[in-house]
Each structure stands twice: as structure tokens, then as C-alpha cells.
């Protein structure tokens, strides 16, 4: 049937089962927003305050649901505002399809109003991107874009459509998702990768070799990385860890990939990793990293990292092998598939002496209790005590992020949304909104600091307008805490431009947006506020005053051996 480009785009989103779009309209994308009117009831559009918020919301939606997030924006500043959100999704392998419109083809390349080369700009931060100049190509491109965003190692894809192509009519032939792989560009791509329409199998010889290495190992250690979360391989990892009786440490991106309360977990590894994790890494004889790229926050010093161990990488992305740390063996494949194949190869093992050694070190930092003011640990404990166990958590970036990853137990993939790779302050509120929209039955909280919250607090308006009940906890230390911590430890306490002892009153700010808030200074006040927020069931901001000099402990400085803690 003959449809306009904008209608074809909407039909293709329906083919993909898209029911939620985050976005912001503008001049060039008007045709698409006009077509959107006819899809009321089939797709929900969330209008954010800023395109960056929309990008983070689509990302949070994707991370929490495992589906592909969708985000719309207009040309020029509309799409450049997305870029921080695209880079955030790219670094953390989150599948989001960004759809932007550009000026009409006759205006392209003439520095027209709100024109920018967004495919050029986003080339290094997308899995791939497209500039579409004809309505005939829209269906083909959208089908390929979704497959690429969710396939292999997931990631963001951007489609830029010139305005005239959204108005132009073209023939639209509906196809089901199953048919996409045998048609058009996507079909050609799959054929080229010499795959049939089924997922490829990991190499069995590689699997058997690893199984043999595991049988010979006396001191194995597993690292649960973001790949376990993206691949939803938590059950397989649990069974695998129990089968080989190995301790498991978790990266920031891996939180939720292994049950936080399981006795085999040593907690987080790396710069702010637990003593048990970092000591185990330094003394194990076999290190198996699953979906982990050994970033500089984990393998702080690649040369001394796990130097007594044979290192094995299980990853879906071949380009990650030996990128940061030289490995002894690797298996390319989906975490779920590879772990299942390994399980089939291995019998029950017992490593009690090794575990006794590892767990003789602390898996969690102990803090002195009885402080006059609230401590980060007390806030985390109160939240854990009063909130449902499966509460979803979105964080911003800084000290609060590390605290809630250290103190909370994450039990399932997608429970935590945090910008681990790109470290985007201002990610949390948008991500929390996306997570709540995608998981209306879950309680969603947003943990932030006073620095991060200032960046994108405008999305409180979105929360209010759509009545998305997210509870925001501000760890308010009136400073950029993580930067201050470095200044304290490394820069001789010269607090250059990190102190934030000037407005706003975050409770009044919440009220200005039509929400409620509370300032809290004690555990009692905090718990009252949490109860009030849960009972009220609308957006709520809890501003928790904490000490300015609270630190994230332990800490190993960048580039050092993983056991060289500069603070315990």
C-alpha cells in the first residue's frame, strides 16, 4: 500500500512491537509527529523536558526491560542534545534506536537552519547509523537498525531521515519480524555473515579446552560483567558458579548478573572493589571473565592484573579479546549459551580451602556506626529495609553510585541502571523514568548526588506530567563528592571548584514541579519520608544531608596494582 515515509516509519515500529517512544518534536520531524497522532492507543509517547532526558529514558527502558528503546528528536540541536545519551548507551551496550529527522534534501549541505551532520557526529558512538534520503528505503533501514541494535553485542543505532522523505509516498509491504531476516538489507547482511536464520553455536573445542582448564584449577575466580546482564544469563552463571564452586566478583555493569546475597559473591571488583574481590583476583590461578572488557576501572594496571592466573575471556564481541588485558584463552559466544555448554561438560567441584582464603577478606566495607548525621550506609540500609526487595535502582555518577552498588544487593539483570562506562552525571532521572514506564509494576528509585541532580532535574516535570512515581534520594554532601575525594587524597585538599554550597532548595524545587519532597538529617526522618513517599505514590524527592567528607571505601588509585588500597 502507498504510505508516506512517516507512516512507513510508524508501521515499521509497530512491526517491532514498539509501544513506548521517548522524544521531543521539532521542525524537521513534524511529519513523523503528525503520523504519530493516528497511533494513539497503540504507542505511548513520553515528551521529556530535554532531548538528553529522552535519550536516557529510552536507555533506561531498554536496560530494565531487555527490549529495544526508541527515541525521537529533531534536527540540529535536537539531535546534538542526544549525543551524551547515545554515547552513554554505546559504552554500556544498551540497545536503543534513535530516530532523528534532518532538513529536506535540497537544503542538506547548505548550513540550513537547524542542520547538522548527525550521522558524522555519532559515527564513533553508534553500532551503525544511516542517513535515509528516500521513503523507499525507510522500511528496509528500520528493520535492519532494530536487528543490529539488539543483535550480537547490543548498542545504539541512529537513523537520520531527511524531512522530504517523511512526506514522500512509497509502497509499504508489511512483513513480520520473522520475515525480516530473509529480505532486503538485513537479509543480505545475514547471508554475508554466513548465518542461517538461527544463532551460531560457540566453538565446542574452545568450550572443552576451558572445561579442562577448570578441572585443573584449584583457585578459580569468576568475573560477572555487563555481558551477563545484557545476555540475561544470571541463572546459568549461578548454576555454573555453584557447579565449579568458585567465588564470583561483580563489575559495576555486572551488578544483578549474580545474586547479591549469594554466599559465593565477593562483591564488586576494581577501583572501589571489596578486599575479598581484589585479593582473590591477585591470587587466583584461573580467572574467567564473562562479558567483561577489563576496563581501566577493573584492570587498573593491566600488566599486574591477575598475574598468577591464566585469564580466560568469554565474550560475544571478538574485538574485546586481548584489547585491555592479554588473555590465555577465549570463547566467543552468548554468555547464556556458553555457560550452558560448560555446565554440560563439568561435574560438581569443591574448592573449600580457596573459598576459605578468599572469604577471610572483607566482602563489604565496615563503617563505624553511631554518627550524628546520616551515613551513606544508613541511607542504603533504610532503603533496603523499607522498599520492596525487587526495587529497581537508577543512579547518577559519583560517590552515591559506588555506595549503592556496594551496599545494595542486586538480584536480577536490569535491576540496576547506571552509567558505568561513560560515567554520565545526569543519567539517573531519565533512566528511572524509562525504567518505571517499562516496568509499571515495580518500585523504581533514583539515587543521585546534589551535583548530578542539578544536571538534569528538569525531568521532574516529565515525572509530574505523566505521573511517573519515581522516588529520588539525593545524597547531599554539598560538594562534588567523588572529585573532592580525589582532591583530598591526591591533590593535597585543594578543593578547586567542587564545593556546591549554594541553592537550590531541592524540596522547594520538587514542589515547584508539583511533586513533594522532604529534607532529612536522621534515620528516623529518612524512614518517615520513605513511608510517606511510598504511601503518596507520586514523584517524591528525599534530600538526605550527609557529611561533606564521606569517602567511598576502599579505594585503589588508577593504574595501581589491584591490591594497593590507598584507603581501606
Amino acid at each position: 500500500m502507498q504510505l508516506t515515509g512517516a507512516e512507513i516509519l510508524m508501521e515499521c515500529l509497530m512491526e517491532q512491537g514498539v509501544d513506548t517512544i521517548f522524544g521531543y518534536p521539532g521542525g524537521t520531524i513534524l511529519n513523523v509527529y503528525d503520523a504519530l497522532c493516528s497511533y494513539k492507543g497503540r504507542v505511548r509517547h513520553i515528551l521529556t523536558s530535554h532531548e538528553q532526558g529522552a535519550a536516557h529514558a529510552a536507555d533506561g527502558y531498554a536496560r530494565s526491560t531487555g527490549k529495544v528503546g526508541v527515541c525521537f528528536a529533531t534536527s540540529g540541536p535536537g539531535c546534538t542534545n542526544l549525543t551524551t545519551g547515545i554515547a552513554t548507551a554505546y559504552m554500556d551496550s544498551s540497545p536503543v534506536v534513535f530516530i532523528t529527522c534532518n532538513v529536506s534534501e535540497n537544503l542538506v549541505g547548505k548550513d540550513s537552519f537547524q542542520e547538522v551532520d548527525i550521522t558524522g557526529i555519532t559515527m564513533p558512538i553508534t553500532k551503525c547509523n544511516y542517513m535515509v534520503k528516500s521513503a523507499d528505503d525507510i522500511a528496509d533501514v528500520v528493520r535492519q537498525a532494530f536487528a543490529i541494535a539488539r543483535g550480537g553485542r547490543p548498542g545504539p543505532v541512529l537513523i537520520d531521515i531527511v524531512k522530504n522523505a517523511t512526506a514522500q509516498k512509497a509502497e509499504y509491504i508489511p512483513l513480520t519480524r520473522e520475515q525480516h531476516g530473509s529480505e532486503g538489507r538485513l537479509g543480505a547482511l545475514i547471508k554475508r555473515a554466513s548465518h542461517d536464520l538461527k544463532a551460531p553455536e560457540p566453538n565446542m573445542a574452545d568450550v572443552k579446552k576451558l572445561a579442562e582448564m577448570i578441572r585443573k584449577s584449584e583457585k578459580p575466580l569468576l568475573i560477572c560483567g555487563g555481558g551477563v546482564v545484557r545476555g540475561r544469563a544470571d541463572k546459568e552463571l549461578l548454576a555454573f558458579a555453584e557447579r565449579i564452586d568458585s567465588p564470583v566478583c561483580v563489575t559495576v555493569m555486572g551488578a544483578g548478573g549474580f545474586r547479591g546475597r549469594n554466599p559465593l559473591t565477593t562483591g564488586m571488583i576494581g577501583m572501589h572493589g571489596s578486599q575479598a574481590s581484589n585479593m582473590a583476583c591477585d591470587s587466583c590461578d584461573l580467572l574467567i571473565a564473562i562479558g567483561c572488557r577489563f576496563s581501566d576501572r577493573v584492570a587498573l594496571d593491566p600488566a599486574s592484573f591477575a598475574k598468577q592466573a591464566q585469564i580466560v575471556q568469554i565474550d560475544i564481541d571478538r574485538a574485546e579479546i586481548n584489547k585491555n588485558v592479554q588473555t590465555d584463552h577465549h570463547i566467543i559466544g552468548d554468555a547464556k549459551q556458553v555457560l550452558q555448554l560448560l555446565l554440560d561438560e563439568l561435574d560438581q567441584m569443591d574448592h573449600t580451602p580457596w573459598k576459605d582464603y578468599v572469604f577471610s577478606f572483607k566482602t563489604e566495607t565496615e563503617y563505624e556506626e553511631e554518627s550524628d548525621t546520616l551515613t551513606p550506609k544508613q541511607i542504603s540500609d533504610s532503603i533496603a529495609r523499607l522498599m520492596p526487595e525487587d526495587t529497581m535502582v537508577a543512579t547518577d555518577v559519583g560517590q552515591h553510585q559506588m555506595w549503592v552498588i556496594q551496599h545494595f544487593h542486586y538480584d536480577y539483570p536490569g535491576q540496576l541502571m547506571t552509567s558505568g562506562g561513560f560515567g554520565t552525571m545526569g543519567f539517573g532521572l531519565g533512566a528511572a523514568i524509562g525504567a518505571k514506564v517499562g516496568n509499571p509494576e515495580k518500585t523504581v528509585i533514583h539515587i543521585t548526588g546534589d551535583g548530578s541532580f542539578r544536571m538534569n532535574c528538569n525531568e521532574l516535570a516529565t515525572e509530574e506530567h505523566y505521573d511517573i512515581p519515581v522516588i529520588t534520594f539525593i545524597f547531599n554532601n554539598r560538594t562534588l563528592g567523588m572529585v573532592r575525594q580525589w582532591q583530598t587524597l591526591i591533590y593535597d585538599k585543594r578543593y578547586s571548584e567542587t564545593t556546591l554550597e549554594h541553592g537550590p532548595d531541592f524540596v522547594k524545587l520538587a514542589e515547584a514541579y508539583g511533586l513533594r519532597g522532604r529534607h532529612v538529617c536522621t534515620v528516623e526522618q529518612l524512614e518517615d519520608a520513605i513511608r510517606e513517599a511510598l504511601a503518596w505514590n507520586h514523584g517524591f524527592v528525599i534530600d538526605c544531608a550527609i557529611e561533606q567528607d564521606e569517602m567511598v571505601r576502599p579505594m585503589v588509585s588508577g593504574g595501581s596494582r589491584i591490591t594497593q588500597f590507598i584507603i581501606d
Partner: protein
Amino acid sequence: MDRTMRRSLSVLVDNEAGVLSQVSRLFSRKGYNIESLAVGTTDDPKISRITIEVLADDKQINLLSNQLRKLLPVHSVKLLAPEHAIRRELILIKVNVPTSEIGNRVIQIANIFRASIIDVSPTTLTLAMIGEESKASAIENLVKEFGILELVRTGMIALERGTDTIYEDTKEKGEFNYGKNVL
């Protein structure tokens, strides 16, 4: 082979707009300067072959190849070992020949190097020569004294010796394709 040296990469890509910029940007993004670049279609007009030369050590060239293989429009990447590759480039040199005596000397040099004279004007000669760097720089040095008005190179192209081709399926190639599996 662990030192920094000039390495040749052969890359098969989709013959589409933007692919060359994607490939070349990868090099600048990772901090490498492209020493030589040559692009053209293959026997399949939908596929182009890019020959790129960069200064890199073993580890660096492997990382670069891996990042290249990951790009969707890239079909395959092969690092050509110097001893197993035939490398050629075409070089055009326009030389200043104010007198016929100088002209004769330039023609003599051209003959020795099997360069052809492809253009003549009363005061210039343009030579074309196919070869590798050593031959090219040798002729360049010899005609330099007469004055080189312009010099242009196509960039190095290369093929492996013997029966090996870029189309062979290796385990590594399969591993990269795994990640490109899109269903």
C-alpha cells in the same frame, strides 16, 4: 616482529557512501596516522578493497584490525606479512627540463627505472613508474636535482603471494561474524 614498522592491511568493505570515512576515522580515533591509502572496487562491484598502511607494532596492528573487523560494512581484514606480499604503487613525477640536455638525462634515468614518459612540454617531462618505496625514492632522488614540479602517488596496493587470498574462512573470521549475527 614486535617493533613499530609500516604494516599493510587489506580490507574488504561494502562499496557504499560513508564507508571509507568510517574506516579512516577509526584510525584517527585510535591515534594512528594513515601512511598510505588506496581504494577501488573489486571484481564484485558491490565490494571495495582498501589497502591501508600504518606505522604500528604487533599489538597495535592487531587491535586496529580487530576494531576494523567489528565495523558492519567491513567483510574481512587481512594483515599482509611483508615477506608474503607484493606491494606496488604508481607514482607520477613532473620534472623541470629547461634544456634538451637535461631532458635527455631525465629520459635516461626513466629508461633505467622502466618509467614511462607520459607527457611532454617544451620545459617539462612527466614520468610514470610502478614500484615499491625503494624504487620510487631512488628515482625521486635522482631527478630532484633538476627540480620536481609535482609528484603524486596512488598509495600502495598489495596482494599476497601464492594461493592465499583474503576470502579464506578462518576461525577468527567466524568469531567476528558471530558478533555481527543480527538475529
